[in-house]
């Protein structure tokens, strides 16, 4: 298999096409434009491939809703303010139990913010984000290779659970170039019975989230909740790094975890026993490994490029079992490993 040098945004598009994505609608927003442009160029090379530059993020996600119901593997992408606009459609996809992949290359916020890498959308991504009682599966890559792998996985997860899946990257993951080897595309396992393609000679069907009767709506909510609990049991992914004899464990995801690894390697060279737990799925959140680790390690430091969002999930996971401190840089600031190492040493010596 060939190894190629490619940027995160491009690889996301290429991996999607290799995974069988045949419908993409998007709207330009920095720092994810290269992905939209990649799809414009490459969707045409595959049979039945559709690219639409939509008039807005709202239109794009609703086009995805239509395409998904009609049986296409469908994807849209955006960055923070654009994802806010897509939330209406993501909630509808969740209600309708339709699969779709949504890529968010996060930038500084709130509001228009800036166009620099950030992790300020954690709450929005992991709490549903739109209205109603629902969850989105959230995958957080920390390298371009992983972005390729997780993009392909995202389509399988979306199909398997008939649920929207979000790839939560950031401006840096999207724009940096790294060598990548593509995994083998897997055949799509998705029943034709879910495809709304005209009823033929048979009975007509409808797909909708509107359920006016409260008891039936409650039933639908409980059905979704049961599905989410299956996902929470089966789909948790995380990586541990040098936690073996650690005295302090950093918890970080995405590009922040990359920075943390750099800091940990430096500190290990100087004799500090520091490790890392990296959540790969942000929802479902890998609470168990954090709880298990707290049995032998009493000191955690959450590091995020935000003012502290995943921090809440870590505290929920620990339920007071261990000490948690926080180091964060919101607003599009990317800390260096040296800067983080300094913050870790302070905590380590406390």
């Amino acid at each position, binding site marked *: 298999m060939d190894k190629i040098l490619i940027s995160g945004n491009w690889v996301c598009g290429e991996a999607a096409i290799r995974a069988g994505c045949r419908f993409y*609608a998007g709207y330009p927003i920095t720092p994810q434009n290269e992905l939209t442009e990649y799809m414009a160029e490459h969707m045409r090379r595959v049979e039945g491939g*559709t690219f639409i530059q939509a008039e807005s993020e709202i239109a794009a996600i609703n086009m995805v*809703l239509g395409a998904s119901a009609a049986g296409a593997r469908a994807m849209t992408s955006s960055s923070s303010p654009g994802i806010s606009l897509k939330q209406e459609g993501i909630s509808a996809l969740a209600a309708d139990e339709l699969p779709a992949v949504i890529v968010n290359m996060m930038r500084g916020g709130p509001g228009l913010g800036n166009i620099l890498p950030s992790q300020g959308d954690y709450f929005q991504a992991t709490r549903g984000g739109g209205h109603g009682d629902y969850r989105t599966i959230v995958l957080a890559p920390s390298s371009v290779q992983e972005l390729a792998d997780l993009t392909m996985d995202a389509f399988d997860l979306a199909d398997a659970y008939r649920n929207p899946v979000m790839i939560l990257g950031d401006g840096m993951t999207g724009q940096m170039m790294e060598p990548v080897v593509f995994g083998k595309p897997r055949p799509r396992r998705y029943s034709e019975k879910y495809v709304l393609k005209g009823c033929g000679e048979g009975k007509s069907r409808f797909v909708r989230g509107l359920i006016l009767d409260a008891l039936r709506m409650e039933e639908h909510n409980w059905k979704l909740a049961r599905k989410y609990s299956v996902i929470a049991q089966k789909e948790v992914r995380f990586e541990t790094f040098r936690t073996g004899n650690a005295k302090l464990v950093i918890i970080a995801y995405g590009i922040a975890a990359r920075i943390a690894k750099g800091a940990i390697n430096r500190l290990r060279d100087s004799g500090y026993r520091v490790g890392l737990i990296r959540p790969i799925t942000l929802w479902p959140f890998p609470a168990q490994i954090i709880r298990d680790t707290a049995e032998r390690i009493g000191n955690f430091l959450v590091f995020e490029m935000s003012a502290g969002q995943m921090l809440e999930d870590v505290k929920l996971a620990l339920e007071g079992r261990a000490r948690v401190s926080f180091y964060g840089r919101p607003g599009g600031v990317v800390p260096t490993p040296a800067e983080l190492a300094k913050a870790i040493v302070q905590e380590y010596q406390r």
Partner: protein
Amino acid sequence: MKKVFSRPKSLKNTAFHYCAGCGHSITHRLICDAIDQLGIRGITIGVPPAGCAVLAYNYFDVDMLEAPHGRGCAVATGIKRTLPDRVVFSYQGDGDLAAIGTAETFHAANRGDNITVIFINNAVYGMTGGQMAPTTLLGMTSTTSPPGRSATLDGHPIRMSEVLAGLDGVRYIERCAVNTPRNILRAGRAIRKAFQYQMDGVGFTMIEVLSQCPTNWKMTPAESCRWIDEVMTKTFPVGVIKDTGKGGTHAD
């Protein structure tokens, strides 16, 4: 004895929830007649709106996918681009199509997406209780324009058909009404023609239907039918607005 009138096959045998005298039920029927006549029940996918017709999937015996508020045209675009050989229509009210969904409607029309929009214009928000719509007539009272719509405060009623007709992607737009037998027959022919154009791959088509809303207009059904002719058509004249499809101009 010869049977001259019956329920269309693609219309489910269910009682409508609509108010007495409402035009939605007539329009549903006309769409189903057109689907039957063209023999396209099995390949048709409908997109109902938010609003009074939100339950349209209880009536149309074709596959249907509900759209969020105003997004009918975007959802229809997604379906149609995925399944180009199906007949895809969205069914939208004036609030849905001309307020919250203006952008989606305008751009689907401009792209020339090969879909058909059935646009119900009753000059008010019906389901939410009679608030001012983009199509509310000047001077017309509503729950949110109690003294009557004022051009200065509220702007003018939007003629969406004329606005969209200016776009090159649009091939056929006709404004009809369902207030008299003659108008109903004409609306039925227009809907059938729009679907036929779509099957011929002509491009974006829209049928605007002036539809009586006795409840929110606070009129009897008979009064509201007359009001369409006497008042509403002065702002929204019926007729072919644009026809650049294969069939040429609409034959009445």
